[in-house]
């Protein structure tokens, strides 16, 4: 019984993996030969063998093509924006590439580009945002209390000046000592 099932399995395997692919390949060759003959005949009569496509197919394909082009355009524009406003990032990236001689010219271009962007002020936007974030990160609870205090209140006067013993977690300010 067991032996029979293995034989059946082997026969099925042979059928599926040897006979069936051979039959399919033969059919495919026949079909291609027929298509070639048809194309030859149509060409001789001055016609084309391309199947006609419906308007819906063509519209869908056109939409797809437009969207793909829009995607590439959007990515290229995003890359250009980053190249102009974040030229530091480009320099950092090419610095790693400069470890091999082929990457050195690109690094030199990136450094020049960065200096140029600095000169025209394109980097100011990123710097301004970063400065704002640094201020927010450095804020203490007393600053927050000062925001809600009345103008004459002592807490309002302390805003931005207080440096409590703790809560200094900015890396550039050094870590607060552990209690």
């Amino acid at each position, binding site marked *: 019984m067991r032996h029979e*099932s293995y034989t*059946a*399995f082997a026969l*099925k*395997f042979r059928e*599926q993996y040897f006979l069936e692919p051979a039959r399919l390949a033969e059919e495919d060759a026949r079909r291609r030969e027929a298509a070639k003959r048809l194309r030859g005949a149509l060409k001789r009569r001055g016609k084309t063998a391309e199947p006609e496509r419906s308007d819906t197919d063509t519209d869908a394909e056109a*939409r*797809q093509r437009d*969207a*793909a*082009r*829009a*995607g*590439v*355009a*959007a*990515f*290229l*524009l*995003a*890359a*250009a*924006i*980053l190249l102009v*406003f*974040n030229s530091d*990032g*480009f320099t950092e*990236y090419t610095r790693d590439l400069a470890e091999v001689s082929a990457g050195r010219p690109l690094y030199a271009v990136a450094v020049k580009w960065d200096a140029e962007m600095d000169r025209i002020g394109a980097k100011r*936007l*990123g*710097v301004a*945002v*970063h400065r704002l*974030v640094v201020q*927010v*990160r450095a*804020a*203490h*609870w007393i*600053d*927050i209390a000062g925001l809600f205090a009345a103008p004459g209140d002592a807490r309002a006067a302390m805003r931005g000046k207080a440096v409590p*013993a*703790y*809560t200094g*977690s900015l890396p550039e300010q050094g870590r*607060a000592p*552990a*209690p």
Partner: protein
Amino acid sequence: MLFPTLNFGIFFLVVFAVAWELRGQAEARKAFLVAASYVFYGFWDWRFTALLAASSLINYTAGRLIAMTGHDRDRRLLVGMAIALNLVILGFFKYYGFFLEQLSDLLDRYGLGRDLPFLEVILPIGISFFTFHGISYVVDIYRRKIPAERDPLNVFLYISFFPQLVAGPIVRASDFLPQLRAEPKLDHAILSRGIVLILIGLFKKMVIANYLSTELVDDMFFDPTSYSGPDLLLGLYGYAVQIYCDFSGYSDIAIGVAALLGYHFKPNFNQPYRAASLREFWRRWHISLSSWLRDYLYKPLGGSRHGRFNTYRNLMITMLLGGLWHGAAWTFIIWGAIHGTVLAVERMIFGTARETVPAPAVMAAGDGVVAASGPPPGSYALRKALGVFVTFNIVCLAWIFFRAESLDYAMQYLQGLTHWSSPVVRATPFLAALVMVSLAAHFVSEDLVERIAARLQGLGALGLGAVLGFGILLIWAVAPAGVAPFIYFQF
């Protein structure tokens, strides 16, 4: 290759352009995407691309053999062998050292200690994910949910497709393979949705997760004895937000990148911290893993079909193995045990009811008729809020074990949470606001991404490019320096 790097940006630009140029040639497109996925994977360590190829080949062959076999017994044998082979590969790379250490400890305890063949085994990135993809493929063929693929390219692409290769989401073969047979779709709606998802994912990872990691969580878990209870509590809530933003950020980028290439992935997270029960939490957190565990582990174990005791046992086994899947350490097993126990307790109390907090009377009503059943709205809101609070804190308790380097550190952290007399040193307004705002964001509308994407849809290519470019610029300027790897890469 990490998503938030210039290398990936250049790689994706090329892949996107070429893949859509090949849209009319299905086989060439698939071959190109497989090659791109291997480049993406090989960028980390090219030697492991052979492992990825071997895993794909094993599952392709197993799928073909299962499909060819008519006898149920032979099919069962083949699927069992395929699963075992997948698990042996995973087990060797992921659990070899752990089990040998445990065995060595056990032998030492009984005075039988000897030299064991310890090896420095490098964990191939994403191995847990591509193993689960492989198992999903062969089991679905065995269950006759999908036909076995004749074209090996389909299986190779399913297992290695780069957006989901290293950290999920765990895409089901029955969801992905039919998409390979259809023509991939891209329009302005998909384009804007993909870009919005990528930007949101980058913000979650680069800004929220990275700040919380570098300025709060890492130090707290490195030395919990140095901090006060309030600091440790903020650190714990911070970790809950960090792991959510890190992993859901990765999933958002993966889903967005796949969408831009014309493939749809199901959502992997859905505002998990608004869950009012642990069962609801698992319907919202790492959805692809929880549904995988449900369909390929919990249900085959018997699910809830064989009485109460067996249901609790099955829940426990599923969650323990879910914990072990995350890593070979007792801390992960305890994490799984906490989830398994609470899920079993919830089931004990609330039975099989889908919601642990029943809908209020007015919400249950339709067409202006007020239903008689259900609690009044005020009581509903209170119970819901209490459910959310309790669930969140149970999840956070389990996160301590998930994040701690060892059981000792986890216990130190737990003890530290009770010390409220020491001064608060790390809870700055910035970090507190980051945690609070991120948690509050769980309660905004669930379709926010869709609404933003719909607004951007009409902008055209230049508008979308400007949104993407300035969006990345802003994230870059706000985020801390450097790119930390994603947490789920280690799993």
